[in-house]
């Protein structure tokens, strides 16, 4: 039986089709999950994809974090279910307090869509086992509110526990604190990042296929 990875659609989610495609390319079955349901359909992992859920009105991810499906995601994450938040999904996970800190307006204040290099800092999480620490990935960043912020104590804790998973290889173009691009929770099953690995799963439609590793990593974890 193949691994089943859920992909949530909120009103205003945009990158669910891409995330589902990345899941399939990695060899798993993509299971659509609906924001208004209280049902994770027994999936082995969940992707919270990018977009502008609820228009990102109020604050990016704020309204989506209150959706019925998120109650289930929070509960299942606590029991170790692998959860990946990409871009708006990362924002939603922070608003739902699954990950610490917050994402605020880019330093340049504009939406920024650019291919850039990420360094893998932690290859032990559910979503990064197929990488090696120090790997460089070319992946698109596309967001308006992608600057990661947290108080100093939280940042020190994240660094101290190796919970910074991805860092921008060049100075963060969005002004992200300590060039942080992605982080994980203490248990290593919940990961959030601003750049879009699902847009880097084929040379034809992306800058590289470097992003596929996140989706294959979780298969190994689930079947292990």
């Amino acid at each position, binding site marked *: 039986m193949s691994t089943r990875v859920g992909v949530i659609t909120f*009103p*205003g989610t*945009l*990158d669910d*089709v*891409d995330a589902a*495609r990345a899941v399939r390319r990695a060899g798993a079955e993509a299971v659509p999950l609906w924001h208004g349901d209280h049902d994770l359909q027994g999936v082995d992992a969940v992707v919270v994809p990018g*977009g*502008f859920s*609820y*228009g*990102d*009105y109020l604050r990016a991810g704020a309204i989506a974090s209150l959706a019925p499906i998120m109650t289930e995601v929070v509960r299942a994450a606590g029991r170790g279910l692998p959860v990946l938040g990409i871009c708006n999904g990362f924002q939603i996970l922070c608003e739902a307090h699954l990950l610490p800190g917050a994402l605020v307006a880019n330093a340049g204040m*504009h*939406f*920024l*869509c*650019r291919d850039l290099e990420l360094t893998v800092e932690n290859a032990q999480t559910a979503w990064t086992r197929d990488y090696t620490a120090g790997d460089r990935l070319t992946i*698109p960043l*596309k967001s*308006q509110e992608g600057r990661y912020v947290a108080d100093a104590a939280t940042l020190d804790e994240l660094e101290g526990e190796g919970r910074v998973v991805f860092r921008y290889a060049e100075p963060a173009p969005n002004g992200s604190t300590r060039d942080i691009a992605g982080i994980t929770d203490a248990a290593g099953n919940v990961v959030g990042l601003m750049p*879009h690995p*699902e*847009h880097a799963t084929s040379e*034809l*439609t*992306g800058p590289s296929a470097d992003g596929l590793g996140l989706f294959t990593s979780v298969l190994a974890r689930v079947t292990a």
Partner: protein
Amino acid sequence: MTQSQVPVDSVKHAEATPEQPQPFRELGLKDDEYARIREILGRRPTDAELAMYSVMWSEHCSYKSSKVHLRYFGETTTEQMRSTMLAGIGENAGVVSVGDGWAVTFKVESHNHPSYVEPYQGAATGVGGIVRDIMAMGARPIAVGDPLRFGPLDADDTGRVLPGIVAGVGGYGNCLGLPNVAGEVVFDPSYAGNPLVNALCVGALKTEDLHLAFASGTGNKIILFGATTGLDGIGGVSVLASETFDSDSGGTGRKKLPSVQVGDPFTEKVLIECCLELFAAGLVVGIQDLGGAGLSCATSELASAGDGGMHVDLDAVPLRATGMTAAEILSSESQERMCAVVTPENVEAFLAVCRRWDTIATVIGEVTDGDRLVITSRGETVVDVPPRTVAHEGPVYTRPVARDDAKQDALNADSPETLPRPETPSELRAEILRMAAAPNLASRSWVTDQYDRYVRGNTVAAHGADSGVVQVDESTGRGIAVATDCNARFVALDPYVGAQLALAEAYRNVATSGAVPLAVTDCLNFGSPEDPHVMWQFEQAVRGLADGCAVLGTPVTGGNVSFYNQTGTTAILPTPVVGVLGVIDDVTTAVRSGFAGADGDAVVLLGT
């Protein structure tokens, strides 16, 4: 604000008060146009009717100055050119078949003036409007583009207008989840105070899913869905508001309603998904987007394209402002709304799909026997008209056309031969540096980095490539390429040849990506049609473009005309932006721009 006691200007009231003066001139109608409305109706129009006729007979909606010229596109389209065309000029957007049962629809439209007044919202709602045009054909929008023109970087308004427009195009398109794959950024002094914001959208559909806008089948229901209707974008029609009417700000009446609209891309994104689900479930007989002229346009166009009449009850329209008059409801340009015709047995299923997407949907009327468009408000008939007279039988002008010989000859005499040439290596160096730093040649990444080009994962080429290339069918690799171009300085020198050069450039940009060019759309941005020299530019450009299309065998499937682009009495450079769409059987074979090969590859220059 309380529900005010504005007397309803009903048809009955209009019949009883034939001499009541009406502000038709303030609404932009000429004396003879007003007389013609009275003749059509056999009485004075009601306020609501006057509002409808005045917006629908405006230059923007009726093409009254351009119609006689645009006919030339039809006259020069051959049977062979028509063979791949499933819908052409006159529909919301042109549709061409691209093989394997797929069809593609695309169109470019202007939102110039609103973008000057409120750059962010003007540009944003420009994107929103063209996307709804594409949806109204039954298609899924798959890409957008944005040919833009600004005054010089240091012109007074550019610092305000350019960042706002770019943020608006991005803000709306990014939130809709449509990759931005093509466009232009051009600077010229003639656009100072009159930037051009043209928005392009491409959609894809299976040929059997093509939807055309018409209301037929007596008893079929008219459903308005999407956003609520408010006081935004009413603009000129405010003169019809009663003086006795209290506004929120107290006692001044609603004399000056804003003419700008505010976009809500989130609502539109949900509307797209909702529409696609409705199409897939076969719940839609006919559909029309609400754009310029709002319900006036949608109801009269749906009714005149159908085979019966239509009754609409304005009391059913969900409003977001209190005390709106019938004229205001009919003229509101509130965004993110669509109007569908649905058989009675499908209404419940239709509403259920809308509920799933949190989209407000309301039955506002039905298709009737007979041939009148009847609109009621608070129990009274406020509109009773033959719909074709509103939508299609507006005034047609044959404006004077005259080449201003003195001006045109002087322009052509001022040739580049007289310009100084760099003579020494250091002069050449300075010249190259000046060119590299020129806004018209510099990198566009400050603009294009604000646009999502990846969303939906089908973008094969976008900014930096000669044309945007987007995969349509993942299983076969079938895709499309699209490019827009126009060098308005060439058009100013010779509008006939200049329009052909714009066509040839866009055509080449599509062809060099490996696609076969199939169809053309255009956005004809010109000065005042009341200036005979501008009309001459317009006529020449249309003829040049049409003749060029005939030679290349690619039909013009749709487009848009924007007149009155001028600062004071000075018109912009004539700017017929041309978009070309091509098909590519397998996007993996698309040719990328730039030197991608190995060292030692030969570089070949083709052409003359």
